[in-house]
């Protein structure tokens, strides 16, 4: 075995090269721990004071065949000496546990000529000739594509410390990466002890050995090492690092919500996993219902009884919840509904990012059901929006939908540690007697707002109903009552809008092109805008957080640009495709909304790659648009 693998010669290690930022990918067969390795590495970089953003690389199946092109599992980590807001473009370094999984990353456009590819060379010694042949062919192909291919003796090195290398390679690779990126060994050992402490001292010891082995091997054999300096001033502010689902879960607890009622669905479930454990300490429950309808019904029952609850789901679950969402609007029940979007329609792309539920969130309900819809754009906002959402739900007496997505859900990012404020918690239940003469829907004729009696409040007894009702909650089919009640429920949104600030454009206040985005694409779009502006492009962007009510002042902002377009991770027809005309073209969801809302000819560029759109791809598209405008094409006919 040894004979066939070329011994890596010790190198004269150069001192680490300073780089402003780097993108690292670690990919393996599913079950080999590349994800854990990536998460630990990201966490270490964050602790080191770097900006980070991570993306999980998830195979479509639980147990894909080994060494298969579609089976890549792992993590992309972008680190920098400045805040990192998105997954970036092509990888600088990729570590692959076998050469086949790398192909799925190549197909996704994750590599470029010059990318350093570390690949386990042990396959050359495999007993199966076909594997050896595959390996040889792939390496030759990688070199032809211009990657710097460097084989690693991962398996043999790991066999010195572990019997089951499938469970050890990832920590050896972690050691390797930490040496390459000049991270302090002692600090890492601490993290390992923390991570594996639960599995006992043996596991800690074994993993510590594997880590050191990888670290030492790299010091001896790896030529190119890098130093990504921490962000200036890092360490002076308290920071936390987590993914979007953890942020939502912590936000739920910090908002004083005690019940999360759910039915498992990717990519929302991990928030409930975290909550189920954390609620043990903070005093709440995760109710795993028998389906999504029951999940929201339970949450509404709990809210009705005074404890505003949250239900969390993804697109297919949202589809099932719609009848109850209409009920919560009609009966004015405070409720928080989190939708962690994935690719649709139908079961779609369960683990992948898309923003396709915007219109469903707004409209999926029997009849016209005005409700609050908002979307965080960063992981930090995932946390804080939950606190806002509960308050709005109670203040405006109705459901609040919070749209996150798979990219936020699984991406990790450091942000300022939330300083917990006791005012975030819900007030204790008011059990004082209800003012006798006040009906349960004493709508303020101006604002539509009203206060609700809670069971336990003497004198407030009333019957909630989803039927048309008057202010006493008495079933009423009279046309004047229905018109008035609809007006009151809708008015609340106008009142909320008056409290929202108009968005501020990133870039400049006026120019040729304004890009409008929402959700997890914030960092990517702004990075693309920045790159174009350094080339002299007169392009800016605004990023929306509220969709119902819509953020104010959009029309005025749009008017200051020659053209407005959305960039979304959504489907839209491309102008110019066969059969696609001005008349037949289907726009992406946000563009549809903005067109009707502002009566502006808002264009769109959107894609559904099942992965975050890289900034450079947006730059290329916008550059084309700007070039076209130079020739006087395509201006806004607002």
């Amino acid at each position, binding site marked *: 075995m040894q004979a066939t693998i070329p011994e890596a010669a010790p190198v004269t290690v150069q001192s680490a090269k300073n780089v402003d930022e780097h993108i690292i990918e670690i990919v393996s067969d599913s079950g080999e721990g590349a994800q854990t390795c990536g998460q630990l590495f990201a966490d270490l970089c964050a602790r080191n004071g770097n900006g980070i953003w991570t993306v999980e690389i998830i195979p479509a199946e639980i147990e894909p065949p080994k060494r298969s092109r579609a089976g890549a599992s792992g993590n992309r980590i972008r680190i920098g000496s400045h805040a990192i807001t998105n997954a970036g473009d092509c990888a600088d370094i990729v570590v692959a546990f076998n050469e086949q999984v790398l192909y799925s990353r190549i197909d996704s456009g994750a590599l470029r000529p010059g990318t350093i590819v570390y690949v386990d060379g042990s396959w050359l010694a495999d007993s199966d000739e076909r594997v050896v042949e595959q390996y040889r062919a792939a390496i030759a192909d990688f070199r032809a594509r211009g990657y710097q291919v460097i084989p690693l003796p991962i398996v043999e090195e790991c066999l010195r410390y572990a019997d089951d290398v499938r469970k050890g390679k990832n920590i050896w690779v972690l050691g390797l990466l930490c040496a390459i990126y000049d991270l302090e060994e002692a600090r890492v050992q601490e993290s390992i002890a923390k991570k594996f402490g639960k599995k006992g001292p043996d596991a800690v010891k074994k993993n510590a050995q594997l880590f050191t082995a990888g670290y030492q091997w790299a010091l001896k054999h790896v030529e190119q090492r890098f130093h990504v300096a921490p962000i200036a001033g890092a360490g002076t502010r308290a*920071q936390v690092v987590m993914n979007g689902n953890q942020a939502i879960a*912590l936000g739920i607890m910090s908002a*004083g919500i005690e019940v999360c009622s759910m039915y498992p669905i990717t990519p929302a479930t991990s928030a409930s996993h975290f909550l189920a454990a954390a609620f043990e300490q903070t005093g709440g429950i995760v109710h795993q*219902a028998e389906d999504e309808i029951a999940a929201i019904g339970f949450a509404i029952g709990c809210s009705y009884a005074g404890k505003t609850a949250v239900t969390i789901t993804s697109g297919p679950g949202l589809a099932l919840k719609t009848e109850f969402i209409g009920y919560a609007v009609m009966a004015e029940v405070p409720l928080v509904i989190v939708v962690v979007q994935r690719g649709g329609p139908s079961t779609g792309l369960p683990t992948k990012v898309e923003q396709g539920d915007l219109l469903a969130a707004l409209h999926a309900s029997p009849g016209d059901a005005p409700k609050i819809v908002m979307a965080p754009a960063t992981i930090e906002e995932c946390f804080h929006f939950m606190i806002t959402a509960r308050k709005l739900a109670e203040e405006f007496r109705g459901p609040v939908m919070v749209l996150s997505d798979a990219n936020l859900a699984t991406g990790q990012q450091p942000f300022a540690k939330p300083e917990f404020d006791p005012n975030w918690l819900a007030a204790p*239940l008011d059990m004082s007697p209800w003012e006798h003469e006040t009906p349960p829907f004493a709508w303020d004729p101006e604002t539509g707002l009203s206060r609700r009696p809670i069971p336990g409040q*003497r004198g407030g007894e009333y*019957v909630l109903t*989803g039927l048309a009702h008057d202010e006493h909650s008495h079933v009423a089919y009279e046309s004047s009552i229905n018109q008035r009640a609809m007006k009151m429920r809708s008015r609340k949104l106008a009142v909320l809008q008056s409290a929202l600030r108009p968005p501020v454009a990133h870039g400049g206040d006026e120019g040729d092109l304004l890009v409008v985005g929402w959700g997890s694409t914030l960092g990517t779009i702004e990075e693309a805008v920045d790159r174009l502006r350094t080339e002299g492009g007169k392009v800016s962007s605004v990023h929306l957080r509220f969709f119902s009510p819509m953020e104010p002042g959009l029309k005025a902002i749009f008017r200051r640009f020659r053209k407005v377009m959305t960039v979304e991770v959504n489907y839209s027809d491309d102008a110019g495709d066969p059969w696609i005309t001005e008349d037949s073209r289907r726009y992406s969801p946000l563009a549809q909304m903005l067109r009707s809302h502002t009566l502006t000819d808002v264009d769109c560029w959107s894609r559904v790659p099942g992965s975050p759109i890289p900034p450079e791809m947006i730059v290329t598209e916008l550059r084309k648009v700007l070039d076209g405008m130079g020739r006087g094409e395509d201006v806004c006919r607002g």
Partner: protein
Amino acid sequence: MQGLKKEWEIEPHEQHHEKADYAGAMPRWCPGCGDHSALNAVKRLCYEKQLPPERTVVVSGIGCSSRFPHYMKTYGFHGLHGRAFPVACGVKSRRPDLHVFMVTGDGDCCAIGAGHWIHALRYNMDITVILLDNNVYGLTKNQTSPTTRLGEHTNTHPRGAIIPPLSPLTVALGVANTSFVAQTVDWNPAHVFNCIEAAHAHRGTSFVRILQRCPHFSAHVFDAPVHDPSLLLMLEHENGVGLEPDKLKKLPNRMGHDPANLEEARAIAAREDVYPIGLLYRNEHAACYDDFTSHGLSMTQLEKQTAIRAAIDKFAI
């Protein structure tokens, strides 16, 4: 009170309630509709037990029977068709202080709500469930329900129902962790009351099926047991649901049945020659999901704040 948080405090001066205090809107059910019987029994129970109206919640779905909460003057939740169970469980989840009743129909419970029905029985939260079974969809005007008997003519099956009905009793008794199953008939108000009283006293989900006459659409379906009381099989036991002696006399067909005996309960429920009435099954030791859902209710705001801060700190770098 010391030790109890403000929101759970019991007021020292208890109020007395008259029967009329529990009466809500004027019932709009057809004259002779069996739903009236259940309403009277629940009102009487509230009065006799002096349940505070503000701590009583009646949850329902959609159907004639589900109009029930409007006719009570307690808190009420007239929800969606088929979805009363999850709502009732949610109401109870963080409010163990509330008396939760749930009223449903045979379509509401056994058709569109069947999934929730089964799981709610399993959760076994402390809720009193009343199934008003008229063997038909009343509100939507005479369609076949899962309990419509073979051959009965309805608007959806004008030539008669084609598949044998399900029995709510055998279904309920087949669900793991079911803890209370009883049956009664709307035309025996004393028995209806006794069943609902026992159901309310039981900790867990008590499921009471009431054979309910719908003079409008299924007038004749219970003619036989109405006219021939020997078709009612009265279940008797010291732990069961009894009847005052003078009323018992009118029920000639009686059998002893220990409600702890699940096997026998299932056998009785499966009988097609008679309508068993009384308590088929009760298990006071079945697990109650409320024990889980009330987790942390006794924590103080300060304890919570400390715990949440600690949870955030775990992510500090």
